[in-house]
């Protein structure tokens, strides 16, 4: 890994993870609640702001759900996917090191 990447916040991590397939705002909130078994319950204002930030970074885009439908879905971009993959690798390293060190202590 040439360039290091800042750690993603839980909010961003779970939003990106929710958008591997197109999904609407409320769906994202529900998905995050399900994935974390209710630990993270994201407010709609917080989510809306985060989605705009991620779209501005080019990590996600808005897609039309159906023709003539005003409702918008969100979807991860290739760039966003790369960020997510690198983050998972970073987290794996954290967990691997944690486990091996702790295992040694036991």
């Amino acid at each position, binding site marked *: 890994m040439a360039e290091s990447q800042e750690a993603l*916040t839980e909010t961003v991590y779970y939003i990106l993870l929710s958008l591997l397939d197109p999904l609407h*705002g409320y769906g994202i909130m529900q998905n995050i609640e399900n994935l974390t078994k209710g630990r993270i319950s994201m*407010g709609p204002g917080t989510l809306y702001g985060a989605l705009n930030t991620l779209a501005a970074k080019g990590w996600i885009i808005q897609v039309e759900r159906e023709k003539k439908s005003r409702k918008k879905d969100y979807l991860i971009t290739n760039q966003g996917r790369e960020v997510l993959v690198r983050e998972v690798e970073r987290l794996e390293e954290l967990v691997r090191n944690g486990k091996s060190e702790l295992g040694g202590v036991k």
Partner: protein
Amino acid sequence: MKRVVWKHFALWKLDEEEKWLNKMGEEGYNLVDVKWMRYIFERGQAGKYQYATEYLEKSSYGRSGQEYIEFLADAGIELVKERRGRAYFCREKRPGKFQIYTDPSSKIKHFNRMISVMVLWVLFFGYYLFERVLALVGYDVFKPPSREIYRLELFLGILLTAIILNLFRGIFKLQNKKKDLRAQRKGKDDET
């Protein structure tokens, strides 16, 4: 059956307002409208709705605002009323707290919106206070103000000073809340 309650919450007491609206809802008074210094409730099922307040972004008035309102509608949240930037949202009661903002960073941004408009008010009232002071110290020496005018200027001056001091108190309170949130954020390493 409608019930009108005369009440006023300063902008920096948005969370107290929210708490109060939820309490009214628990008692079966559901908010239907907000007017100057007045809240209008309709008698209904107790505890059916939950309420949340937000000071909207400037752009929320325009088209992007409509987009946000629709985004919320998608999540089952209804806009009861928007008045001078303050939005009153409700949703049918579900388990969990009804919060528009849930992480420290977005809460801080919300407070910053309130603080910036309050600073504008301070400047606005400050300018008028400055004018009153000029009038009081005999800005127009050749035509001294009559006693009535003098009293009026003095009254306005005191009123404006009170308003400005109150605004400063509000800004100070919000700054303190922000400080607590920043400390939380540091703990959680959250930076959205």
